[in-house]
């Protein structure tokens, strides 16, 4: 303990000229660093990167007949295409991981966002700086959106690399039967990555809203997974078909429209609109909550 170094006085305020954008970018960088250096999140991204590798080897060892599964939609249709074209490994990986692992990754990050910080006590540290309640919430949501994009892109890129290593790569035969140049196929893959990231970002809005209600990150993750699984189950029950379009997961896999010619844009727009509605509703809940919340942890 230094006893003779001068303690800063309370007199001249070291206050910067207002530069809200630069200050905000600094907070955003700090939030990104927290999310992307946290050991658990790195492990999570590791799992996302390894999954397409396993999937690729599994299909390489036990190569399905071209067109196997016979289905014209879903995983079956994609599996049948992988042996002919490695690009489909990226699509299959996204399709498979969207059922649980990608939502889980978003659930982990959303749980950490506010509930985790509250549990750790760091939320009170940040709010007394003061970081600003709504400003902090907004920054954390931007980080969730970025994380959604990184996670989906990671799966697609690793899938693509594995696909190229294990299977032929060339012009892409779409699910509707037409063949398009490889570059066109890759552009469709990029659009699918963005579509899936949007779906995950909407899930993240539900997550960050839940995150304002508790200081237990695990409770947020568990609740989100229950929401995802229950929504998927209801989506499969034809007796409740009337509520299907309103389920949060209903449009998650609608990206197969991008694998047909002509592209059924209405399906894509319906999906994006559904995600936007969920993001706005739960974003509003989160803002209302964080403004009033008692931070007593």
């Amino acid at each position: 303990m230094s006893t003779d170094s001068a303690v800063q006085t309370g007199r001249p305020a070291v206050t910067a000229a207002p530069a809200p954008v630069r200050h905000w970018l600094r907070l955003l960088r700090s939030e990104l660093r927290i999310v992307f250096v946290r050991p658990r999140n790195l492990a999570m991204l590791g799992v996302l990167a390894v999954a397409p590798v396993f999937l690729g080897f599994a299909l390489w060892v036990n190569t399905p007949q071209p067109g196997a599964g016979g289905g014209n939609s879903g995983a079956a249709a994609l599996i049948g295409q992988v042996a002919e074209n490695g690009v489909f490994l990226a699509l299959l990986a996204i399709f498979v991981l969207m059922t649980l692992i990608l939502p889980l990754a978003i659930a982990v990050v959303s749980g950490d966002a506010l509930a985790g910080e509250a549990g750790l006590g760091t939320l009170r540290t940040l709010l007394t700086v003061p970081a600003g309640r709504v400003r902090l919430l907004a920054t954390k949501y931007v980080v969730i959106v970025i994380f959604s994009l990184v996670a989906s892109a990671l799966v697609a890129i690793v899938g693509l690399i594995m696909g190229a290593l294990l299977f032929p790569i060339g012009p892409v035969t779409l699910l509707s039967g037409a063949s398009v140049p490889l570059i066109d196929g890759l552009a469709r893959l990029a659009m699918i990555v963005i579509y899936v990231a949007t779906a995950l970002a909407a899930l993240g809005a539900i997550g960050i809203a839940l995150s304002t209600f508790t200081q237990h990150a695990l409770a947020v993750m568990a609740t989100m997974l229950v929401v995802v699984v229950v929504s998927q189950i209801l989506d499969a029950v034809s007796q409740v078909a009337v509520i299907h379009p309103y389920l949060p997961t209903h449009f998650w896999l609608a990206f197969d429209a991008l694998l047909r010619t002509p592209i059924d844009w209405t399906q894509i727009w319906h999906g994006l609109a559904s995600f936007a509605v969920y993001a706005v509703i739960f974003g509003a809940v989160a803002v209302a909550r964080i403004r009033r919340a008692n931070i007593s942890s």
Partner: protein
Amino acid sequence: MTLIDARSAGAGPDRPAAADPSLAIATAGLAKRFRGGQLAVDHIDLAVPVGSVYGFLGPNGSGKTTTIRMLLGLIHPSGGSFTVLGASGADGIDAALPRVGALVEGPAFYPFLTGRQNLARCDAADRTADLGTSRARIDHALEQVGLLAAADKRYRAYSLGMKQRLGIASGLLRPRDLMILDEPTNGLDPQGTREIRTLIRQIAAAGTTVFVSSHLLAEVEQICSHVGVMSTGRLVFQGTMADLRGRGERRIAIHTAEPDRAAKVLADLGLAGAGVAGQDVTAVLGEHAPEAINAELVRAGVPVAGLATVRPSLEDLFVQLTGEGFDVNG
């Protein structure tokens, strides 16, 4: 400074806290009732003068942390009002917080980041801090609390004393007019406690008002100019240290082989609260002169072996104020 009994001060729950510029913190009827139903803070009127080192004392559970959370806008009061450095209320307080350094309910940082990275994160959250001097300010704060050498260790590996000091360092990232420190010595050994006291003295010497809570009187009595004493949510005393010392009633204590006769003499003289314990007799001195009492005892033939006047210790006063044993040793 006058003695204020929070109940008799007559603060209506909605009387606004005075915007008195000589007070760094002022509250009026500030109250918090948690959902459980119990009043954690029971209509308190704090007055923390600018430039003071204010000891906010009280046993565990007496409402100190809850009060501090309200002052920092972390929780919303159920009643009353408060002003911190001229900014009022949970919604307006953010305007003053850049001038307030705070440590609430012990330090809270990310275990997987180093001390320096943790401070950088606090600084990054600050929307008015000078961007260009961030590194220098972080180093300066670390140096002030003596953590420069351990700056690049992970927080996980810090000792409790180092964690507390990092918590104080986060309050020193920029010049402050007010430091609010909630139990900064909690759990520390005597050496660690001394270090924190030295640090608080330096902060105060630089002109910063310090509001420091503790459940241990002994840990802060040396550094405080003012004290407020909490007991089950109520502010049962507020004033200068001198006010507190002066509050104890002087008693006379007589050592004699005939205590019962001595007690009778004291009672006849009109001294209240006479009590006998073995060969010792004590009573409240009041306005009586000890030498006159001695003369009276001798006239009555009481063999006086010893006579003294005693003031209760600060510890005794705390026991009286808080109505329970004040934990002296932690």
